[in-house]
């Protein structure tokens, strides 16, 4: 398969922007970097031929979810975080390193299993195939997610209500 330079550029952008997400002390900058990651991932999906997933990624993630994030940032604006200091910080770094190493080992073995079959073209399943599958075999998970979103909606309205003065 020919390497798509657009996909490579998107991958580089996502890798760098992900670092910015956790390194920026300003939450707003983190959120903007996260939007860059999400859009770059959408570009990768499109480049791989999964156009429907790319569209959902842009609409739901880069659109709806990030708007929620920006609203929360605006509400909580001006609050400073306390960075963990001393042994807690070292312990966190150690734990992050260990988890990363374990993941790296897992990915190395997964890399062999996921090696692309040669000479295959990727006719991406269109929205028609995905919909047929989603509403036939995966109808229950689909309905459960719908119910979950409804429950989340109600929960958010309950949580976001200001307490009545007693």
């Amino acid at each position, binding site marked *: 398969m020919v390497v798509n330079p657009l996909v490579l550029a998107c991958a580089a952008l996502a890798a760098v922007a992900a670092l910015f997400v*956790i390194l920026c002390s300003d939450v707003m900058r983190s959120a903007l970097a996260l939007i860059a990651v999400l859009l770059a991932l959408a570009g990768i999906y499109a480049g791989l031929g999964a156009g429907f997933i790319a569209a959902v990624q842009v609409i739901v993630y880069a659109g709806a979810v990030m708007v929620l994030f920006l609203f929360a940032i605006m509400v909580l604006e001006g609050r400073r975080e306390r*960075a963990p200091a001393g042994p807690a910080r070292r312990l*966190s770094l150690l734990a992050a390193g260990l988890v990363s190493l374990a993941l790296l080992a897992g990915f190395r073995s997964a890399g062999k299993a996921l090696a692309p079959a040669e000479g295959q073209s990727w006719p991406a*399943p269109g929205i028609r195939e995905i919909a047929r599958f989603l509403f036939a075999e995966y109808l229950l998970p689909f309905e459960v997610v719908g119910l979950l979103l409804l429950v989340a*909606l109600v929960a958010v309205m309950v949580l976001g209500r200001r307490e009545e003065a007693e």
Partner: protein
Amino acid sequence: MSLQPVLLGLSFWLFAVGVAGVLLRRSPLTVFMSVELMLNAANLLLVLAARKAGFEAVALPSLVGVFLVIGVAAGEVAVGLAIMVAVFRSEADVDLDRVSSLKG
């Protein structure tokens, strides 16, 4: 040069960065964004698996999985941010280690 190891590495990198963010940062918003990074790493891996299967009928569960993960993530973010706003509305500064009011 093949694209597969690059994207596999990107998926690993996104998840590792997400783990580091959850463990190192104390701002609840940044922690949430790190969780999003990890979810996206999983999504990227699912799409890669679908592509490995040639995007044929056997690949559809993988793509539907991505779809469902995005839906669940949206619900999770909505509830999580609402809890955050409710908890930190009365607090002076934002520190996840000091949140104990959710204990029973």
